[in-house]
């Protein structure tokens, strides 16, 4: 699951700035946490965020798939090859500080990925553009941000179509890693060239529809932004600042 998922969860109904602010707080918070317990509490918070968005299972599964290779690399790099002292885990002697480091880094990656996937799933690009339009943001900026949210699902859909077409024309997947690598070329080239051709047409179409008119765009259906949500966003900012304050205070001590 990568991309917006229709839903009626509190995160879906919230103002898009609130949904994105929570994801940004997870991202910033991840770098403020320096101990394994703190980081994994943040992972729990990220999973809570996904649960509120109604996408806990899908987010967690995709996050594990995306983070797993990183966990393995971190375990080898820090756990096996890390500094003394070592602890025995069965027949293997693992680096104690290395393991702690791997847990911190792995936890950060996991929290960020869960937060990012949940924000993608719960933020409607249409509502985000409407919110930014209502705030007077230039259309180009709103479109850029919304396009970023939709680019992954669009590319994945297109890649699946190209893959099917190439398989119909005899492309064989599987085999050795070298053969798999070689099979990437007939997928990547049409993917990139097709995307570029589409961008050309879309630029023309948007221009023809007044996107570059320079006028202040009319918001057609701006999402509600309650005082409670504004307070929540400020609170999240305060929490992030407090976490950094705590981090630097501890480092100085």
């Amino acid at each position, binding site marked *: 699951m990568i991309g917006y998922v229709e839903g009626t969860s509190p995160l879906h109904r919230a103002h898009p700035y609130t949904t994105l602010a929570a994801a940004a707080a997870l991202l910033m918070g991840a770098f403020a946490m320096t101990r394994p317990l703190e980081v994994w509490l943040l992972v729990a918070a990220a999973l809570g965020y996904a649960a509120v968005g109604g996408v806990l299972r899908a987010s967690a599964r995709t996050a594990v798939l995306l983070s797993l290779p990183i966990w393995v690399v971190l375990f080898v790099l820090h756990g096996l090859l890390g500094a003394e002292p070592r602890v025995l885990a069965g027949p293997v002697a693992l680096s104690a500080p290395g393991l702690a480091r791997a847990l911190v880094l792995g936890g950060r990656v996991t929290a960020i990925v869960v937060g990012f996937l949940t924000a993608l799933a719960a933020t409607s690009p249409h509502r985000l553009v409407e919110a930014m339009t209502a705030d007077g943001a230039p259309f180009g900026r709103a479109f850029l941000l919304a396009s970023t949210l*939709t680019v992954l699902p669009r590319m994945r859909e297109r890649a699946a179509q190209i893959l099917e077409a190439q398989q119909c024309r005899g492309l064989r997947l599987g085999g050795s890693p070298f053969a798999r690598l070689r099979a990437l070329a007939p997928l990547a080239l049409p993917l990139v060239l097709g995307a570029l051709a589409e961008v050309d047409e879309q630029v023309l179409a948007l221009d023809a529809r007044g996107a570059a008119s320079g006028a202040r765009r*009319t918001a057609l259906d701006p999402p509600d932004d309650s005082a409670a949500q504004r307070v929540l966003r400020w609170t999240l900012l305060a929490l992030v600042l407090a976490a950094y304050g705590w981090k630097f205070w501890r480092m100085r001590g």
Partner: protein
Amino acid sequence: MTAPLITLAGASFSYPGAARPALTDVSLDVAPGDVLAVTGPAGAGTSTLLLVATGFAPRVVGGTLTGGRDIAARRCGVVFARPWTQLTGLCSTVRDEVAFGPASLGLPRAAVFAAAARALDQLRIAHLADRDPAQLSGGELQRVVVAAALALGPDVLALDDPAAELDPEAADALYDALPGLGAAGTAVLLATPDLQRAARVATRAVAMAEGRIAAQGRPADVLDGTDVALLARAAGCPPPYPVDITALLRRIAPQSSRGGRGTSDAPPAGSGPDTGVTAP
């Protein structure tokens, strides 16, 4: 005579980095109400002519334009062959998609939705207003894209092979809407390889070859490669050949054409396609 909306006088255009010009020495007038069919083989420059005539080339696509071009049209709309590349990707309903253009101009909300409703009615797709554009068929989507272009109230609407991705029924529905646009005063530039349908709706035609205008004038003079024209020629009809079935019926049996499809779909007298054929 009505002042032209677009005038090209000896215009030539080259894309950035191209060795050869895509258009050479093109002269053309487009007046309000014209439904101008632009035909030619692949690479003849039909799409480029539309982009140059409507001002998108070189302003948006880059390149070099020489010769004279005067665009008196207040606003030009453009529609391409693939409808899904022309969606904003940001709208969850057809109504919002069509309203995107007027909203971009900063019109008040009521005026935005009124313009969208008008355009949806014009294309007879008001029943799709609450649907998600991503869930529509290609034919429905293409009509949504045309409605989105019309919602801006363009003086000139350029359609580049608009039925390329459509089934015959959807293509007919789209082409059948064009004479109505012309009758309402919108000039329609239609680049298409579909001579049969173009002959049915065009009031004028341009044939292009290798970036130059090879012929322009009445559809009867320019679109003489339609199946009907070839049939009439083979049957020994004297030129100008009837280019669509309505004109052929009129030629061979004036009474029988009155109940036919072409007659029932034809625009009001005086605004319809000039097939160059008169009943005996």
